[in-house]
């Protein structure tokens, strides 16, 4: 016996994936008056968007990403008013330390290149200025490249706040609902099949993070997503000694002290990703290198203990920039995934850009470098 077919739910757009990119696009599309359905297989912010390092960083962005990153940053600086939630956002310098003249020379060249392109947010700072922000620092550090009004935020708090705002503007979220298949019906609607019935819309946005590959392939646009599990460590509380988010040339490390005194360490060897089971496993043995690097750069760290670690599931693209924009094959299909370990900061700006593209048909941000076609043609060539 056939089960009676469950009701079809229709909107102007269905978004698959309730991470920061799905939520942010939902918010801005709803703001533009569109009816929005978001399908999330687990719960909103359960994956990369809720568990990342919270780095709000323009520093060191791939040149193609800079416009998106700047647009985001403008939103970040007013985020508390915009979302009625401070998102734990704090302005703080992001800096990358140099310990050799050669590293510092590369940094100077980067700043010159940025300035030639009209960007002034990245600057070189000297060791005295660094020490105003970090009180326990190795003597080897001679300078840094920095973005002084970058910052950090609480990732889950942020993603959850974006979701709430989107909801308040009318977006409908269906959590615990897996989008299994996507097909176009005769009327031109996308039909998204889920265990909870079918959802339909003339437009479809795929923001499924590391799980985006299957649907993209089914839609005829396979992409070489590499599952990636960045690992994070959190320490016991230490007295305040660092007011910056810090990385260092040649050291796989990102480092910041939270206002409550705990130190969050990331950027080291990744863990083991297993998207099929939703699991990203921490492997401790290689973390000894991150631990050593931390203690040698910040001697005070020898007093702390690791209280908690985790790894999150992220989609990495072979060229480390995301797949963003229109499908090359289908009208009404859009992509925003593959943020390769640095998509949290981009979330707010990306959503506004996607909404602009989807609602008006164009955006003034150049999305060509992010085209899904860059892989399709690659595959055709091999």
């Amino acid at each position: 016996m056939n089960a009676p077919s469950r009701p079809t739910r229709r909107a102007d757009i269905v978004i698959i994936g309730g991470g920061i990119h799905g939520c942010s696009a939902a918010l801005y599309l709803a703001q533009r008056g569109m009816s929005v359905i978001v399908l999330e297989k687990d719960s909103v912010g359960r994956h990369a968007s809720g568990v990342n390092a919270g780095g709000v960083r323009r520093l060191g962005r791939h040149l193609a990403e800079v416009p998106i990153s700047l647009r985001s940053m403008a939103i970040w600086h007013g985020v508390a008013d915009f979302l009625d939630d401070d998102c734990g956002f704090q302005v703080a310098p992001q800096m990358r330390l140099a310990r050799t003249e050669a590293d510092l020379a590369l940094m100077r060249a980067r700043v010159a290149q940025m300035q030639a392109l009209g960007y002034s947010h990245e600057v070189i700072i000297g060791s005295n200025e660094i020490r105003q922000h970090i009180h326990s620092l190795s003597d080897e550090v001679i300078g840094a490249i920095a973005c002084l009004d970058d910052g950090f935020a609480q990732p889950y708090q942020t993603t959850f706040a974006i979701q709430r705002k989107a909801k308040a503007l009318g977006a409908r979220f269906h959590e615990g609902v897996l989008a299994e298949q996507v097909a176009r019906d005769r009327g031109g609607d996308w039909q998204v099949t889920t265990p909870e019935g079918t959802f339909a819309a003339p437009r479809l946005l795929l923001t499924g993070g590391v799980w985006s590959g299957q649907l993209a392939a089914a839609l005829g646009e396979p992409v070489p997503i590499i599952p990636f599990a960045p690992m994070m460590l959190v320490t016991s509380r230490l007295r305040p000694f660092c007011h910056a988010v810090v990385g260092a040339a040649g050291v796989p490390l990102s480092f910041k002290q939270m206002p409550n005194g705990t130190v969050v360490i990331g950027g080291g060897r990744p863990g083991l990703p297993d998207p099929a089971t939703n699991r990203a496993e921490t492997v401790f043995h290689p973390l000894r290198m991150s631990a050593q690097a931390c203690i040698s750069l910040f001697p005070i760290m020898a007093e702390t203990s690791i209280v908690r670690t985790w790894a999150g599931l992220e989609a990495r693209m072979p060229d480390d920039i995301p797949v963003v924009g229109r499908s090359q094959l289908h009208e009404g299909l859009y992509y925003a995934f593959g943020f390769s370990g640095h998509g949290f900061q981009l979330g707010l700006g990306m959503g506004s850009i996607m909404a602009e593209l989807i609602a008006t048909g164009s955006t003034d941000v150049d999305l060509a470098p992010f085209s899904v076609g860059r892989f399709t043609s690659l595959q055709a060539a091999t």
Partner: protein
Amino acid sequence: MIREVDVAVIGAGPAGLAAATEAAGAGLSVVLLDEQPAPGGQIYRAVEGADAGLMHILGRDYAEGRALVAAFRASPAEYLPGASVWNIGTDRLIDFSRGGAIACLRAASIVAATGALERPCPIPGWTLPGVTTVGALQILLKTSAVVEDDLVLAGAGPLLWLVASQLVAAGAPPRAVVETVPKGRMSAALSRLPGALRSAGYLRKGLGLIAAVRRAGVAVHAHAEALEVEGGAAVTGLRFRAGGREHRIACSAVGLHQGVIPNQQISRLLRCDHVWDAAQHCFRPVLDAHFRTSVPWLHVVGDAGGIGGARAAALQGRIVGLDLAVRAGRPDDGRIGALRAELDRDLAVRPFLEAFYAPDPAILNPADSTIVCRCEEVTAGTVRAAVRLGAPGPNQVKSLIRTGMGPCQGRVCGVAVSTIIAAAQGALPDRADYYRIRPPLKPVPLTELAAYPVIGPEVEAREP
């Protein structure tokens, strides 16, 4: 090179000791790791070293632990005391710390025998110095022969009476026992009494303890409610309502108890399936007839798999130890069947105890102003506010308000936070979720991690 063994047992209480003894006796290579300096677990803690006087105070059940420990000592199982296991990978690699250094080993089968934790007792004032669990008071007595002189015991459960009677025997009777079992529990539990009579020894013993405490002249307040520890920087008294009036007992120490619940850290770390046990009001890992979790190489025995007490724990440990040997090709000499029958008999008393000593409803749903997460000092009201905002479960609540993010890793507040959230959502506790437990299970000094020994290409190869 990573050391490989057939069986790693974690926890040297009755369950772990028995499992290690049987498996090693059958010829498997066995390592038993425990963070304590001596075998016995919580129940038989320091049992090898106790002198005659202390043995007398602690009673005959405690003395039973000696035989178990002796059998283990005589077995070929290797014992690593002072070893704190803080991570187990899906590749069965166990990370642990011992004597200030990290080491690791891999086992074909892992037996988690990590016992029970006391149920959190979030009442006003429970974070003051001088408030301990009742189990803590017993540990003081067992390991150091130290007793509190100015003490009130409050709560419910067999351990409350056992410790009260031990303190009486030690010549340090508590000022009072304040029991929170509500009126009417007995009639609710009566239907389970006939079954319990199959292990009537437990009931007789329990009644004997209560009688001994009363005989010693200890004030007993029954059906107490609205418990509140009083004090600014230290405990000054306990307030409660009983018999239709308010009471205040001046004291400098309060022992709280509301029963024990499985220590799920390892089975949660490995993402085993868990269920809400409505009778025991707690989560436990789902186990098959061989005490195997949903992760086929991980077994859980003893209270860590569901509360059954010391004898049941030892029986389960023996069953798993023998079972592992049989599965490794050793002959089955029929002992497993006999042990299972004995285990059934032993557990017969449980449904009655569970019904009678079900936790105080006030503990499961504390007042808004009461702290539930001791580490991060988060109140029940803050948890409820996060739920009102729309946070769907304990993990999102944790991300928002830091419950369970302190050094105890949610061991103490976990079940309380789950039940508060479920109640605030109008859901039954069996719909409640639980924290995802992240490694390390215990904080690891950064200097120790920096000195993690290099362990060769095999593990390196697993790295992406």
